């Protein structure tokens, strides 16, 4: 321990033990515990106590101090547990101290126990303490187990959850044993503490009330989730009949934690080979209500080694709600390729679908599960792509009122009423539809996909979030549409869709709702990025008003929309698809170039988002060699000039990125991906040219100004850029003599760094730049900047000082203001 900390600790302990002293807040106590944890992990706890007897004093005084804050009490309990985690220290503290803290003599029986913080501290203290076999008899002596079991039902969820975890931990500690091997001793030979815990679990699982079963299931889930030792097989063998009995009840109690337990067992390498378990899982799929069977089915399907039959059953359960929807629309047997589910399940699902809230919840859950399952390699094979697409389209049609229910189908009528205009289901279905693009499907179905997407994009009733999902799905299906080799247009049915999309996009770009304008612009950007090379698309886009509307949206009152418009216009311009800027606002007016317009945004937009978007566009232009950036020096000089004055640190940081791209280009090769990575020096001549080019665009001034930026990310980026400049652009150049100009510059930099001079350095000559770069300790700066900004305040000494200051024991107020 730091000598200064050792010096401060007694005063702090005294302050903590004094009920009359103001107590530091929870955050400080947490930090203090973190520090003690790091100290005990690094060395002996016993030594710590010997070096700092004040800690023992504190732990002894705390139980006896009336009126002590519950926070300090909880802190002491946790600290004691932390120290006693080492067996030697445990022995040292055992006796009056630990019993006084954790036993009846401590807060357990007193008024302080009413505070959830104290109960939580008590549990966490024991949880830390229970790291060695000697802890078990101690717990038994205290009679702690019964208290922990009772705390599982605590009114505070944190306490209840911690109690469950402590029980699981005690079980693991008691049964211990090797990581692999035989299942261990039979249950009757288990240690007493393990027997006691298991006895509690058995009792809870047999109890008639769901909350008690839930507590036991949570403990088992934690146990099997964290411990894969052989003894877990014995535990499961002993308790699984009780779990199976839960499944026989109707309705199944505590269904949600039961599903969690089953999946936790399934994922345990020690248990997954248990044949009985798979049978239980199959039974659970049949017994649980659809809302709970769905998550279990998904969990089973994501397992690597799920038996074929169970996987098929799980998939059928997962698809059951969609099967009912299909049936409600077509009154026909399940389509080919659709896994058959039991009739009983179908009836239960149909009943559930006919109630509004259950229907929406179940469909959203099913659609989300399928979206998760679709990209996984272990998804069921053959994957029923066509029927799934059909089902999703049917759901979407029910949602927009275009589905025609099967004649005489009551469920169809109900679905019409329940799903019409339901944005939640629409979003979930469009999400799945978007995910299904990878496997495409029969052409007639793909045609239907585009038709339904167009309906949603056109519909005035589509909410902005639904519309965004529809745009995303449309983009995915468009990107997956096959293009004939060497062809200039995508294959049908994407081609007619693309044609009909532009009028829709035009309308959406004029929407009064800014979210719609924003997502339309994002869609346009992505669309142009992908299809700009297609002659048909180019022609249609240029013939439409879309580019002009995108241009007009640069003036949108909403900053997010302006930012998206900047990105879209930048993308269109880079593909030669930008509009003639003269619009109805200034008919016949002079046409304005894209670069001046975006520079105008960078210089004048009052919000940061559009300016950041403009910088991103400029960086992309430079990297892609766009025509607007053809005269790279002039281009970069103008951008840096505008960005240098920006108040937004991200804009300044992006300015440095642009400068980096320029420098790498000037050096004639892409730069190293990591700013700190070393690269071989370049020949002197190109390096000199690069340096001169950098000086001409004002890059060194920009970077030097940024080096002392008050925003650390900017300063770090500037430091990295200057290192690159020094190491790459000037490695072979001889160091010029430090003339008076260089000395003046260095002095100016020093003053500027100290905040004495508001004006940044002016234009620099290459020689002066070289001299400054050599004289600056850039490596040192890089190290300093790599430290977090509060590294000084985060050290333990500072923490102790803060806490003492709060307690009023330090005359000078040196508390950190953070």
């Amino acid at each position, binding site marked *: 321990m730091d000598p200064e900390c050792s010096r401060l600790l007694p005063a702090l302990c005294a302050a903590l033990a004094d009920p009359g002293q103001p107590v530091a807040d929870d955050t400080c106590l947490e930090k203090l515990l973190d520090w003690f944890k790091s100290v005990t992990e690094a060395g002996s706890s016993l030594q710590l106590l010997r070096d700092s007897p004040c800690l023992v004093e504190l732990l002894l005084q705390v139980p006896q101090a009336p009126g002590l804050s519950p926070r300090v009490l909880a802190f002491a309990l946790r600290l004691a547990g932390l120290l006693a985690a080492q067996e030697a220290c445990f022995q040292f503290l055992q006796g009056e101290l630990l019993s006084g803290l954790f036993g009846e003599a401590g807060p357990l029986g007193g008024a302080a126990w009413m505070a959830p913080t104290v109960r939580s501290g008590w549990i966490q203290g024991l949880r830390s303490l229970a790291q060695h076999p000697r802890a078990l008899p101690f717990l038994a002596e205290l009679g702690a187990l019964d208290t922990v079991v009772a705390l599982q039902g605590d009114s505070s969820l944190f306490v209840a959850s911690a109690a469950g975890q402590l029980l699981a931990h005690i079980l693991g500690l008691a049964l211990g044993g090797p990581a692999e091997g035989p299942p261990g001793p039979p249950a009757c030979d288990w240690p007493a503490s393990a027997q006691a815990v298991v006895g509690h679990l058995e009792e809870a699982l047999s109890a008639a009330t769901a909350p008690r079963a839930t507590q036991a299931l949570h403990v088992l889930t934690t146990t099997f989730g964290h411990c894969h030792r052989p003894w877990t097989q014995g535990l499961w063998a002993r308790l699984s009949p009780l779990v199976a009995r839960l499944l026989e009840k109707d309705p199944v109690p505590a269904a949600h934690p039961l599903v969690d337990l089953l999946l936790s067992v399934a994922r345990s390498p020690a248990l997954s080979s248990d044949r009985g378990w798979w049978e239980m899982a199959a039974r659970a799929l049949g017994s649980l209500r659809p809302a709970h069977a769905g998550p279990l089915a998904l969990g089973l399907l994501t397992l690597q080694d799920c038996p074929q039959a169970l996987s098929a059953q799980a998939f059928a359960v997962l698809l059951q709600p969609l099967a009912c929807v299909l049936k409600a629309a077509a009154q026909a047997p399940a389509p080919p390729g659709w896994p058959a589910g039991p009739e009983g399940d179908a009836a239960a699902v149909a009943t559930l679908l006919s109630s509004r809230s259950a229907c929406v919840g179940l469909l959203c859950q099913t659609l989300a599960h399928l979206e998760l399952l679709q990209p996984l390699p272990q998804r069921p094979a053959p994957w029923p792509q066509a029927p799934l697409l059909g089902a999703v389209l049917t759901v979407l049609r029910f949602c927009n009122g275009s589905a025609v229910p099967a004649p005489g189908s009551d469920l169809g*009528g109900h679905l019409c009423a329940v799903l019409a205009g339901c944005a939640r289901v629409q979003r979930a279905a469009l999400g799945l539809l978007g995910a299904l693009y990878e496997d495409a499907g029969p052409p007639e179905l793909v045609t239907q996909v585009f038709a339904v997407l167009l309906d949603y994009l056109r519909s*005035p009733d589509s909410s902005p979030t639904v519309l965004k999902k529809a745009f995303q799905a449309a983009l995915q299906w468009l990107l997956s549409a096959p293009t004939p080799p060497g062809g200039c247009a995508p294959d049908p049915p994407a081609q007619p869709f693309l044609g009909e999309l532009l009028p829709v996009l035009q309308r959406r770009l004029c*929407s009064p709702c*800014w979210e719609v304008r924003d997502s339309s612009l994002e869609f346009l950007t992505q669309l142009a990025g992908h299809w700009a090379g297609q002659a048909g698309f180019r022609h249609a886009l240029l013939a439409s008003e879309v580019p*002009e509307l995108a241009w007009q949206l640069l003036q949108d*009152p909403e900053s997010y929309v302006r930012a998206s418009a900047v990105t879209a216009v930048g993308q269109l311009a880079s593909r030669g698809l930008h509009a003639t800027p003269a619009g109805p*606002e200034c008919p016949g007016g002079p046409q304005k170039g894209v670069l001046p317009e975006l520079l105008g945004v960078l210089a004048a937009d009052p919000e940061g988002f559009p300016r950041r978007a403009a910088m991103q566009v400029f960086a992309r232009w430079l990297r892609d060699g766009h025509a607007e950036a053809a005269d790279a020096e002039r281009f970069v000089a103008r951008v840096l000039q505008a960005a240098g004055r920006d108040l937004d640190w991200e804009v300044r940081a992006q300015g440095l990125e642009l400068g980096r791209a320029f420098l790498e280009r000037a050096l004639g090769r892409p730069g190293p991906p990591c700013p700190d990575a070393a690269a071989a020096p370049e020949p002197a001549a190109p390096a000199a040219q690069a340096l001169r080019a950098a000086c001409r665009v004002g890059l060194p001034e920009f970077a030097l100004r940024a080096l002392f930026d008050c925003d650390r990310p900017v300063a770090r980026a500037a430091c990295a850029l200057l290192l690159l400049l020094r190491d790459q652009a000037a490695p072979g150049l001889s160091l010029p003599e430090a003339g008076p100009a260089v000395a003046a510059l260095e002095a100016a930099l020093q003053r500027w760094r100290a905040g004495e001079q508001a004006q940044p350095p002016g234009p620099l000559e290459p020689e002066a730049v070289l001299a400054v770069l050599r004289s600056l300790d850039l490596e040192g700066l890089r190290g300093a900047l790599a430290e977090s900004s509060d590294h000084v305040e985060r050290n333990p000494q500072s923490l102790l000082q803060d806490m003492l200051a709060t307690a009023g024991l330090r005359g000078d107020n040196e508390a950190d203001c953070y």
Partner: protein
Amino acid sequence: MKLYCLSGHPTLPCNVLKFKSTTIMLDCGLDMTSTLNFLPLPLVQSPRLSNLPGWSLKDGNVFLDKELKECSGHVFVDSVPEFCLPETELIDLSTVDVILISNYHCMMALPYITEHTGFTGTVYATEPTVQIGRLLMEELVNFIERVPKAQSASVWKNKDVQRLLPSPLKDAVEVSTWRRCYSLQEVNSALSKIQLVGYSQKIELFGAVQVTPLSSGYALGSSNWIIQSHYEKVSYVSGSSLLTTHPQPMDQASLKNSDVLVLTGLTQIPTANPDGMVGEFFSSLALTVRNGGNVLVPCYPSGVIYDLLECLYQYIDSAGLSSIPFYFISPVANSSLEFSQIFAEWLCHNKQAKVYLPEPPFPHAELIQTNKLKHYPSIHGDFSNDFRQPCVVFTGHPSLRFGDVVHFMELWGKSSLNTVIFTEPDFSYLEALAPYQPLAMKCIYCPIDTRLNFIQVSKLLKEVQPLHVVCPEQYTQPPPAQAHRMDLMIDCQPPPMSYRRAEVLALPFKRRYEKIEIMPETAVM
């Protein structure tokens, strides 16, 4: 207790309730869809309309070619437009004691009832209903009277002739009862019989029945009515809205515990969400104007236009439409815009609060002040001097058969740059456009109907739990075009009783108690 159903139009109802020896007429809506069978009345001579060919029967009889004209395969009556009146034969209307008016759209047949049936009773309505109803009637009279048409076609109404005509003329009902528009004098006389009432005001009718208007949330001053005796309660729900627009919100609580709830005036476009339609309206408007085209919005001079102007106020700058002129043309435009600002007590809470600031409750005042919105009584006069294109014109009538809108349809119809946007749901836009075909201008249908939809009705009925629901037959089955949409009908238990035009319904209502007072002298005897 009986209900006499005099109108077949579910949103323009006219029913008569006989309850405890009182005869109460519930609304007197005027079905104007009949005017769609007539040729438009152009304000300025239209060579196109004048030169339309006459229509003849296949057998060569040419006697109808003076009355009927053909335009793009449709046949129209070349005469002064006529309206389909409520039934006058089902019940002697001179016996009607009172007429309760729900909103200004549901009083347009009032002059026909009060001036031509021997009616001697009282009409009850709120002040905004009367004032705006007057504006609507004056506008209608003005639109029709300022284009006098000598010809009055009647031969085609002959039953033997009508059955030979093509649809929709062949299928038009009760054509013999169709009447020309009333005069301004009749309007004034009819309105003089109205007694103004306020929300929740209890009005005793002959000591037998008490009637009370409640806010219905649909339009300025719009009401539902409670008709109750000591032991019975009938609620009349007509044209109500739960959306937050400019009027006071709907009073639902007072409708609870009704023995009978007569439910009319639900949304005519149940599948169109008003918010989505407003979005569509502005998208289409902005797109057209940015493209250099003009936008025509056929509308009534009051109602949704207030909300559209308010949205416009919020949207105008963001959409880059600040330099585009917006014109509101109606003989009553000025009065309508001014009336809306003075009925503060009838407005929603937010707008009421503005009055105390003091600020005008509707932002169209600012649009007018800044010259972004200009209003004119007609296309003649000042408007022709100020007219600048591209522009947006709000004008009537939404049927496109009379009013200044006819002029703009003729003027702008030939260019595909222009757009006509239909926002009023009362008329089929395809039928409205029929006499203007072929038409190059774009047509956008954004019906904005804020009245209750079926989901809202379902919730309302669960909330207020009437013993019996009575409604037009159209509400008891899905719309014919969407026969599978079982959600687009009233679903309640017991199932609603339905009525149709010219039907008399005996309401399932047993009166078990009556409150009487016995004079002490009688009691002694």
